[in-house]
């Protein structure tokens, strides 16, 4: 009796191992989340990013005041840990007496939106060009590769700054300019992966049964480059947020009175000697966000990229 029971157990074990490859989509997602959960750094990053997003989405409900409400009589109130602070404005007030905390909360909207949108734009452009360059080779490849090299030989910031100087600063222009300056990274990455994948047998098979090129590129090759794109794209969001804030800091980005962390830093620059908190606080907001995104990206890298250790 006992022996048979043991046999049964072995059989069920075997069954389970056999089931795993045919696991359904949600099962795979669950497995992925379980694996991700073990990487504490990535989880911490995800928590930070999610809370920042929540803060940005529900800014009107969270912020104690309107970010545009001015009151010159209480301008430049210091935050709570300094003398002369006012308990109704926990983080003080800015140059025009607007509540600093409310402006910081609203600032998350601009920064996160600019980061995510510009990366989406840059990635879709870069992925498409990279796929075409890698798949078609020859003159298509040399044209796109040369364009990539030229873009990478250009100091990124100057290109962005010059383009914005032309079209004039606004949220839309910033997203477009950051997107256009950001695509070469994805194109280069996707191109080199496509070069390997296009030689694989299943691509050959797809061509054999008469699939058209576009179908092979987007149905068969594209899904296999997504993993590395997700990792790079995540890290790029952080870089774009920093770039946006630097442009706003120089006055070439989001224009006042719309609150953005970058233009708050730009305003604070003139108070560096008297009110150093003015510069400290928006910077911390940017740093926490980009740190969260970088940690999330590192976690995803460990999860999605089996060659993480080799490729760095």
């Amino acid at each position, binding site marked *: 009796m006992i022996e048979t029971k043991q046999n049964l157990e072995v059989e069920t074990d075997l069954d389970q191992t056999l089931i795993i490859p045919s696991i359904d989509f949600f099962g795979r997602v669950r497995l992925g989340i379980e694996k991700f959960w073990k990487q504490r*750094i990535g989880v911490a990053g995800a928590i930070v990013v999610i809370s920042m997003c929540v803060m940005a989405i529900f800014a009107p409900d969270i912020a104690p005041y309107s970010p545009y409400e001015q009151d010159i009589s209480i301008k430049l109130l210091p935050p709570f840990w300094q003398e002369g602070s006012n308990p109704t404005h926990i983080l003080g007030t800015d140059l025009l007496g607007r509540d600093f905390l409310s402006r910081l909360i609203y600032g998350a909207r601009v920064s996160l939106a600019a980061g995510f949108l510009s990366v989406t734009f840059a990635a879709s452009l870069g992925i498409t060009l990279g796929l075409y360059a890698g798949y078609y080779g020859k003159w298509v490849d040399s044209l796109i590769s*040369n*364009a990539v*090299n*030229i873009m*990478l*030989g*250009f*100091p*990124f*910031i*100057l*290109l962005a*700054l*010059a*383009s914005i*100087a*032309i079209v004039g600063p606004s949220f839309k222009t910033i997203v477009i300019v950051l997107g256009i300056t950001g695509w070469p990274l994805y194109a280069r990455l996707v191109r080199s992966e496509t070069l390997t994948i296009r030689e694989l047998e299943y691509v050959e098979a797809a061509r054999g049964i008469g699939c058209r090129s576009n179908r092979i590129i987007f149905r068969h090759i594209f899904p296999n480059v997504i993993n590395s794109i997700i990792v790079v794209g995540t890290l790029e969001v*952080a870089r774009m947020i*920093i770039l946006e*804030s*630097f442009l706003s*800091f*120089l006055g*070439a980005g989001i224009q006042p009175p719309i609150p953005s962390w970058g233009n708050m*830093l730009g305003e604070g*620059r003139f108070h*560096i*000697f008297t009110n*150093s908190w003015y*510069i*400290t606080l928006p*910077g911390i907001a*940017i*740093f926490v966000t*980009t*740190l969260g*995104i*970088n*940690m999330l990206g*590192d976690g995803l890298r460990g999860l999605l990229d089996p060659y993480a*250790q*080799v490729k*760095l």
Partner: protein
Amino acid sequence: MSYVLKRCWQAIIVVLGVTTITFILLQASGDPITVLLSPEATKEDIENLRKVMGLDKPLPVQYFKFMKRTIRGDFGESYMLREDAFKLVMERLPATIELAVGGTVFAIIVAIPLGIFAAIKRYTIYDNFCMVLAVSGQAIPLFWLALMLMIFFSIHLGWLPVSGRGGFSHLIMPSVTLGVYMAPITMRLIRSGMIDVFEKNFIQTARAKGLPESKVILKHALKNVMIPVSTVLAMQFGRMIGGAVVTETVFAWPGVGRLAVKSIMDVDFPTVQAAVFVMAIVIVSVNLFADILITFIDPRVSYD
């Protein structure tokens, strides 16, 4: 050899491409006449200046002329400073090089010990700590770090000058800022390189011979890691110039980056063109040099 020629050809294409993009961008950014003349200028004045500057010619002609002059390093006079734009840029190049060297030195001083340490203690809490440092260094906004350093060391402690270029004390904060930008990637490269090398046979041989561990690490392992690390760093030189632009702007460091940013803001076309051209040449030649050098140093690397 054909590889070297091919790479040189590519480098030339990049420089020409960058110059062309700058030309297009500046053409799109509006009429320089409006900047040069006062609003009271008559129509005749405008027409005259247009003729003198060759702006009345069709665009392809202007482009061709522009490229011909570019090759000779002649970008015309700066609109703002009334001096030869190329000369202005070249005068500021040493400051940028000084900053780049300072930043690299700081990055290496921080990254080599930490990278080796993380590799020796790999997958432990110490390694994790080093990785957290690296991730923070990657995440910190460079211009904010520069401002925070200013607040702490110049305003609170009064140890270092706030901005500008001068003696060694002026160089410290900008170098640290740029160094923090470059250190994380250097550290990660050294760490992963060291971990790879530790598995190799010649390291085991060195240990078996009874060499002290410090000698094994510094003489046998590190030397082998530094070749790929320095190539990757040379490839990252463009990124470093980008970092220098930010650092120079915040610290009012009189380099090419700050000049470029300022001339973009001032619509000073000749200076922008000269600055971007010089930067592109520097970036491309450093990349090219590293690329060719590695094929000679390391015979395992071949490009076909």
